[in-house]
């Protein structure tokens, strides 16, 4: 069995406090294993980014982590709770262990510094003993790795195209050889050709360097192609989690099914698309019970009253599957701390 | 940090104070020591009279007193005042060591004669000749009324220096050579430092004050603050509520002395505007003005001494000139008398409104530029005074240029303004009443008679006073002039011009005072030199 690197347990994230708080992530349990690509899907506003930034405490105000643990397993040492780190500890932890590629590359790069500066200041902060020369050399190496000519080292972000910027960000994420790379919609701003090129490169690098990836997008067909395991979020919760191929072939949750039938396929027979009726829920006024039930074609009695628990449905034996749906009731909830 | 610093000797402050700090509120200065230029720093700060000296000194506080010989040992005017013989003092030396001679005096007047721009008093010079140490000046018209302007207000300059100057009107006289007891030490835009002469060539005993430090302040406020703080020891500036803001800061040393002189401030009435062409109305208005209030509230109880004599002549300086019939006659606020007078002239007081004989309410617009706060306060007081006899006054504050133009063109109803001043009351009355200055409405009357006052009697008398050859004739003319002024009320006199100053006795004593009014008190006038010569260290 694969080793876990990052375990998210019962994570709760709110925007704001008190009565007006928006519960953007609720009771999320998720485990990322060493070397795997974990896809996180769900429509806009389902809490994917919140989850990703929440686990490294990078949410902008008024985000507040109201509960849960994020347990990180370093290779050799004892695992520890990331949320419990001191500021200094957290700074050391960041990028060394978990690096993030943010949604918009243009906005992720500081417009007034050369990319060489932005690459090397990671090294300067985390490996102060490193010489200036070897820092530059390392930065150069990283750029080469992501397919950017090292002579663009001294370019400013605005002098690079969108794809190049995104690749710089990927290179920057890998510069310290972290265990985990979180990628929040890294390719939505790019066209398909570029998207494939970058993702292909990333998969290749993962094979060489052995890091794990949390890959966030709402493009399920992309996820299915590129990730090992997929977790689907709806209304701040994970509603289904399974190996990619399993989800694609046999999604259990009606929402997952709906998502999958919203994409026209390019190849194969023209299948009829059903989509998902209704509109995404308002996080401030979540419906009681399963938050998907107002849109669910198969909703029945318990859906509107009780929240389904995420777990392995009893009638299934497939490895690493779990779903939160009353159609597939879970016998005993998974371990509770 | 170089040894030859011009500031080096300022550092040894442990010595007892041997300098005097003089301030004037005249703004930034540029270096110009030309004594003839009205715009020069030497003129604005007054230090030209410490470098250059006049032929005689006169005392504006007691204008009837005889003049004090200065560079001239004697001055002899012809009876008709169309020529004068000046005997130049022996032993005076210029600061460059050359002797001061009659040639220098003659050259000075020739210079003025030849340059209209230097002839500030518009003196009609005739021939100028030298005979030994006597200079004879002739004039095209009698100069009785101008005698002190010629003798006491003309700085005598060295011929050997000035004849080399290409254009005396624009030269800044960078290295002034004068006959006075001081020489220029340094100039900055904020002030000037003079130090006492060291060549031993001054013709009198040198003053005790070794250094005069002139500072130019940005305006009245800063100057007054500096006086209160002791940063200035002598100045001529309007200090509002002087007792509280200045004297009380150091009652033992902070002093004010502001004697009146022959020049006054008053409310000019435009005598062409109905109903103010009516003498009776003007008389009534004159009767209700509360000059005491104005003196205390607008003039800080000192600045423009209250005019008491009905002739408009200030106490002290004017005493010698008051006609016998007006001796002892002083202004009193007499509202009832004014009302009675108006009633007799056909005016009707209708409640609080005075109606003229034609039945129209009497209204008057008083105007003066806004920044002249003492005038503005005066107008506010006059306004409430007029209200007591039913005249509704409004105060207008046009800007200064507009006001200037309006007053000169006769486009005003009433306005506070000054008169010219001089050694005799002639200048005062001439400014107000001279028919020779009369211009039609709409044409600028630049020199006087802004109220378009027509009185052939006054015009003749003024002319007679200036041109006659005997004192008796002059006295008769002056009496006539005063009679017209008092009876016709072309202007409502309010306060006297003053030659005052604020000073501190902390370091220096010997200032003129009521007890010893040996001169005026302004640091910018010729007599300032007389004062400086008399100052003694306070602690000696």
């Amino acid at each position, binding site marked *: 069995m694969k080793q876990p690197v990052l375990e998210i347990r019962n994570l709760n994230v709110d925007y704001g406090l008190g009565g007006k708080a928006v519960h953007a992530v609720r009771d999320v349990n998720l485990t990322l294993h060493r070397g795997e690509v974990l896809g996180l899907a769900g429509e806009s506003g389902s809490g994917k980014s919140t989850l990703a*930034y929440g686990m490294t405490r*990078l949410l*902008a105000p008024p985000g507040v982590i109201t509960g849960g643990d994020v347990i990180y397993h370093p290779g050799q040492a004892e695992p520890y709770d990331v949320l419990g780190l001191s500021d200094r500890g957290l*700074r050391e932890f*960041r990028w060394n262990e978990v690096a*993030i590629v943010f949604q918009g590359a243009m906005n*992720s790069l*500081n*417009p007034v*510094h*050369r990319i060489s500066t932005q690459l090397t*200041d*990671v090294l300067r*902060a*985390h490996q102060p003993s490193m010489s200036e020369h070897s820092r530059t050399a390392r930065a150069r190496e990283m750029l080469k790795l992501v397919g950017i000519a090292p002579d663009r080292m001294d370019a400013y972000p*605005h002098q690079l195209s969108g794809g190049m910027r995104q690749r710089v960000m990927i290179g920057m994420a890998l510069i310290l050889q972290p265990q985990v790379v979180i990628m929040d919609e890294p390719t939505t701003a790019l066209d398909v050709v570029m998207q494939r090129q970058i993702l292909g490169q990333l998969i290749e690098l993962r094979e060489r360097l052995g890091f794990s990836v949390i890959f966030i997008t709402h493009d399920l067909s992309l996820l299915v192609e590129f990730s090992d395991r997929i977790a689907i979020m709806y209304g701040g919760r994970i509603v289904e989690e399974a190996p990619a191929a399993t989800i694609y072939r046999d999604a259990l949750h009606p929402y997952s099914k709906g998502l999958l039938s919203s994409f026209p396929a390019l190849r194969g027979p023209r299948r009829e698309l059903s989509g998902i009726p209704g509109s995404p829920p308002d996080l401030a006024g979540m419906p009681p019970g399963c938050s998907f039930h107002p849109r669910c074609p198969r909703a029945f009695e318990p859906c509107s009253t009780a929240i389904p628990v995420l777990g392995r449905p009893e009638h299934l034996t497939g490895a690493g599957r779990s779903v939160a749906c009353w159609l597939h009731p879970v016998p005993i909830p998974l371990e509770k701390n | *940090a170089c040894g030859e*610093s*011009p*500031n*080096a000797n*300022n550092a040894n402050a442990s010595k007892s104070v041997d300098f005097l700090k003089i301030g004037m509120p005249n*703004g*930034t*200065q*540029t270096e*110009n020591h030309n004594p003839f*230029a*009205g*715009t020069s720093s030497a003129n604005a700060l007054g230090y030209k009279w410490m470098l250059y000296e006049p032929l005689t000194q006169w005392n504006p506080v007691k204008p009837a007193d005889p003049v004090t010989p200065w560079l001239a040992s004697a001055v002899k005017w012809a009876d008709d005042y169309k020529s004068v013989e000046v005997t130049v003092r022996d032993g005076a030396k210029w600061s460059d060591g050359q002797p001061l001679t009659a040639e220098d005096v003659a050259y000075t007047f020739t210079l003025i004669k030849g340059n*209209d721009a230097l002839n*500030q*008093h*518009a003196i009609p010079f005739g021939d100028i000749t030298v005979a030994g140490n006597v200079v004879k000046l002739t004039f095209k018209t009698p100069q009785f009324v101008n005698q002190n*302007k010629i003798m006491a207000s003309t700085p005598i300059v060295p011929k050997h220096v000035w004849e080399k100057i290409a254009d005396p009107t*624009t030269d*800044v006289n960078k290295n002034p050579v004068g006959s006075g007891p001081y020489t220029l030490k*340094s100039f900055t835009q*904020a*002030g000037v*430092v003079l130090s006492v002469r060291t060549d031993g060539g001054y013709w009198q005993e040198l003053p005790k004050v070794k*250094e005069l*430090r002139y500072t130019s302040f*940005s305006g009245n406020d800063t*100057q007054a603050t*500096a006086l209160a*703080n*002791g*940063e200035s020891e002598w100045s001529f500036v309007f200090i509002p509520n002087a007792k509280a803001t200045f004297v009380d*800061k*150091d009652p033992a040393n902070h002093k004010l002395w502001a004697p009146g002189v022959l*020049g006054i401030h008053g409310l000019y009435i435009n005598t062409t505007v109905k109903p103010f062409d009516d003498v009776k109305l003007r008389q009534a208005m004159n009767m209700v003005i509360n000059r005491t209030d104005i003196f205390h509230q607008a003039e800080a109880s000192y600045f423009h001494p209250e005019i008491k004599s009905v002739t408009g002549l200030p106490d002290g300086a004017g005493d010698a000139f008051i006609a016998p019939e007006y001796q002892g006659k002083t202004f009193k606020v007499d509202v009832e008398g004014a009302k009675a007078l108006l009633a007799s002239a056909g005016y009707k007081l209708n409640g609080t409104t005075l109606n003229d004989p034609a039945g129209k309410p009497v209204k008057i617009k008083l105007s003066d530029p806004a920044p*002249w706060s003492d005038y503005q306060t005066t107008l506010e007081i006059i306004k409430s005074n007029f209200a007591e006899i039913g005249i509704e006054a409004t105060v207008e504050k046009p800007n*200064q*240029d507009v006001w200037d133009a309006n007053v000169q063109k006769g486009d005003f109803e009433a306005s506070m303004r*000054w008169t*010219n001043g001089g050694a005799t009351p002639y200048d005062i009355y001439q*400014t107000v009443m001279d028919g020779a200055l009369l211009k039609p409405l709409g044409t600028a009357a*630049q020199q*006087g008679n802004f109220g378009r006052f027509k009185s052939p009697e006054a015009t003749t008398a003024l002319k007679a006073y200036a041109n006659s050859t005997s004192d008796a004739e002059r006295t008769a003319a002056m009496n006539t002039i005063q009679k017209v002024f008092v009876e016709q009320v072309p202007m409502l006199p309010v306060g006297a011009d003053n030659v005052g100053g604020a000073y501190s006795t902390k370091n220096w004593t010997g200032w003129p005072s009521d007890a010893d009014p040996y001169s005026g008190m302004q640091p910018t006038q010729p007599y300032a030199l007389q004062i400086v010569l008399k100052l003694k260290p306070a602690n000696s």
Partner: protein
Amino acid sequence: MKYFLQRMAFYLFTAWAAITLNFFIPRMVPGDPVQALIAKYRGQLSSEAIASLYVLFGLDKQGSLWSQYLDYWKQIFQGDLGLSFTFFPAPVSQIITQALPWTLLLVGVTTIISFLLGTGLGVLAGWRRGSWTDGLLPVTTFFSSVPYFWLGIIAIYLLAGPDSFFPSSGGFDSGLVPAWDQYFIPSAIQHSLLPALTILISSVSGWILSMRNMMVTVSSEDYITVAHAKGLSERRVALSYAARNALLPNVSGFALALGFIVGGTLLVEIVFSYPGLGFTLLQALGAKDYPLMQGIFLVITISVLVANLLADVAYLLLDPRTRKEG
């Protein structure tokens, strides 16, 4: 390069417009210098001096407006600004060179200090929101709304006085001559403290506020989050990432402020009787001294333009995005 040429064209045009305006504005002002001089010396200057002054100022002969305008340009190109009336016969250029250093030193230095201090505090306030720095804001808001002259006068009343360290007026001790020596410089500094302090108090808040707002805006940019995610030190994130970007818009504000140094010092100089250009302008105005007014306006406009030019250059250096190729 194209950008640069465009800017140059703009500067030339603006300079022409402003200089032309300089020529016409004083001529709109009614009144004439001689009358003004006489009124200034209420009763001290005799009415007879009028004619002599007209001759002196050369006002008795003047050509058409157009020929005056041409002459004016000719003079400007010869670096000749004419003679002042108030300080006749001092050349305008001399008066300006005499006053300008004071203005530049006092207000220039304080403007720079104010900018640096305000920006620094603004960075702090913007970065550490919710800490004590929040208390700074109401105070600074209040001080930025106080009329400057009022503050200055109150400062003189409270702090300057006969026995106080702070002189109430002037640029240096009377009796001293401007020189770079151990007597003059301390005196000049001592005299400049109170004016500088009041300028600082009333101007620093503007910088604090604008910098704080920019910091807040920039702080929520993605690249700041990225910088945090990269585990950079707080200092580096705050300064090199947030403040560095937040500074950019403030640079143009700073340039404008630099430009207005010369024109905006009027009140300081009036209140503190401090030597300088602003007060000279007011005097010139009161005296209808066209040549001086024109000269000072010229200096002001040129300094504003130069400051803007510098800001453009600074912007070019600070913001790589403006350095577009081509």
